[in-house]
């Protein structure tokens, strides 16, 4: 009898499933008073990006207009423009199929799929993306259904899990690429701080991600495949 093993992408995404669901629930709780029960769930399905959804919701709750809200969300997702080009070669099929497969990219799935040498693992990307999607939407449903009875993720410190997870991956990248990576990281941090001060919400991450372009000015980082 064949042994069934979970796809690798599901396994590596496991540590962040609970925080993702909790964040989705937090979104559901915040959005339900404004949008009702259906809209937040649809939004989580169509947009599939926590920060973008929170950004847009924030604008709407503060009384902002459609354009401002949509812009806030789109600006937040701009980082995926860059990541899209980076993961493109690992996908399969023609343009259209790759465009569809590229929808699996979120912060977490992108981070998990990286092999550390500039290439990305398609299986990890698609499976962790799918898993994140399931957790995110389920969380939103729970948040909408339970509303104020959902425990506060901030009280349980769950809001630090995602950043801590990203920090873990960052440290492994720093260890792998050392000087070029530390340099890029310092610039990315600096740009992120400046951008938070000067640019609208959501933009800082996307803009700071461009610090990777500094890599073009340096000698070839270690581990680069020719």
């Amino acid at each position, binding site marked *: 009898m064949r042994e069934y093993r979970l796809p690798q992408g599901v396994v590596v995404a496991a*540590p962040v499933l609970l925080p993702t669901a909790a964040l989705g629930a937090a979104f559901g709780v915040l959005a339900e008073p404004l949008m009702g029960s259906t*809209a937040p769930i*649809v939004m989580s399905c*169509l*947009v599939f990006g926590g920060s*973008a959804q929170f950004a847009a919701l924030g604008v*709407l709750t503060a009384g902002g*207009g*459609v354009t401002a809200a*949509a812009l806030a*969300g*789109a600006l937040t997702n701009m980082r*995926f423009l*860059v990541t*899209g080009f*980076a993961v*493109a*070669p690992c996908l399969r099929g*023609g*343009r259209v199929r*790759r465009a*569809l*497969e590229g*929808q699996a990219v979120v912060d977490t799935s992108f*981070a998990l799929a990286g092999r550390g040498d500039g290439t990305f693992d398609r299986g990890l990307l698609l499976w962790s993306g799918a898993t994140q999607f399931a957790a995110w939407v389920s969380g939103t449903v729970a948040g909408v259904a339970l509303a104020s009875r959902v425990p506060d993720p901030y*009280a*349980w*410190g*769950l809001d*630090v899990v*995602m*950043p*801590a*997870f*990203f*920090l*873990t*991956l*960052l*440290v492994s990248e720093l260890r792998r*690429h050392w000087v*070029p*990576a530390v340099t*890029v990281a310092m610039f*990315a*941090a600096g740009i*992120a*701080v400046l951008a*938070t001060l*000067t640019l609208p919400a959501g933009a*800082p*991450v996307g803009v*700071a*991600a461009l*610090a*990777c372009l500094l890599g*073009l000015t340096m000698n070839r*980082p270690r*581990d*680069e495949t020719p």
Partner: protein
Amino acid sequence: MTAEKWWVVIVVLGIATFGIKAAGPFLMGERDIPSRLRPAVLLLPTALMTALVTVAMLRPTPSGSLRVDAAQCVGLATAALALLLRLPLIFVLAAAVSATVTFRLIT
């Protein structure tokens, strides 16, 4: 029409997000990354992770100044320590959560 404001946002943002994520793969097609751009792609995860961690430590204020989220900083500093000690992921995350919760409880 104000009752349907958020639906317009959801649809527009949904389409925009699809386009943003689709652009790279669609435009690249079956081509590979140009070799002179490889060093940038190599360091993209570094830049992105750094940005995400940095932003998590900040709380934006409407007046354009910065507020640091102390609880997150404490949690992430603890995580950094755990990482330096090469502890497994589960301990890193548990340490971060414990530190953040404790900090919020005592302040």
